[in-house]
């Protein structure tokens, strides 16, 4: 059933493209709010990358890639928390 896998890859790639476009076309009013919107897009991109790596591991039958997904999950959480702390202090 490779057709279904290809379709899943296509959906994930379309999601990636949508998020990247949204990240660059953020409506800018205040720079903190702009940065927070981009942080949301970055968080979703990290989650999408975890899903992409998992799908890649299944399609190519490489078990080791799940470790990469785990490390990415840890780093993405830390990055989002650091972003939020920094932007909360502000000014």
């Amino acid at each position, binding site marked *: 059933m490779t057709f279904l896998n290809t379709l899943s890859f296509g*959906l994930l790639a379309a*999601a990636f493209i949508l998020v990247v476009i949204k990240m660059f076309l953020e409506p800018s009013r205040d720079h903190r709010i702009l940065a927070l919107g981009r942080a949301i897009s970055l*968080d979703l991109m990290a989650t999408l990358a975890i899903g992409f790596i998992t799908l890649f591991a*299944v399609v190519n039958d490489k078990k080791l890639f799940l470790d990469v997904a785990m490390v990415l999950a840890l780093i993405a959480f830390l990055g989002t928390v650091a972003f939020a702390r920094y932007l909360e202090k502000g000014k």
Partner: protein
Amino acid sequence: MFAQILMFIGAFFMFVAALGVARMPDLFMRLQSNTKSATFGVGFLLLGAAIHFWEFAISIRALAILIFLFATSPVAAHMLGRAAYIAGAPLWKGTLSDDLKGQYDYKTHELTAQPEEQQPKPRKTGEKRTK
């Protein structure tokens, strides 16, 4: 076969999450779409991987990633939402209620007890004592 159907469902939900982040009018709504739908989708994807590699060490690893994501995603979303509220992100024009309005002290970053027009009601737990 079953694993591939699960992974397709997960990819579909992640696409819905990306659509929500791209199209929602408000920062908080985008945050909600990000955290709920994307976590649900990645959960399905990891479950599909755990079923595909039907092997103890690998399936446990996939389930560990799933549990970690389910634990940390609400925390990250809460922190982003709090930072957005403090930064004064505008709400959507059709928003009906803003419960935190007037109760948050922007200087000291503390919740004050009650807004002025509301009568203070006794509460059992969870309320900060005022002097």
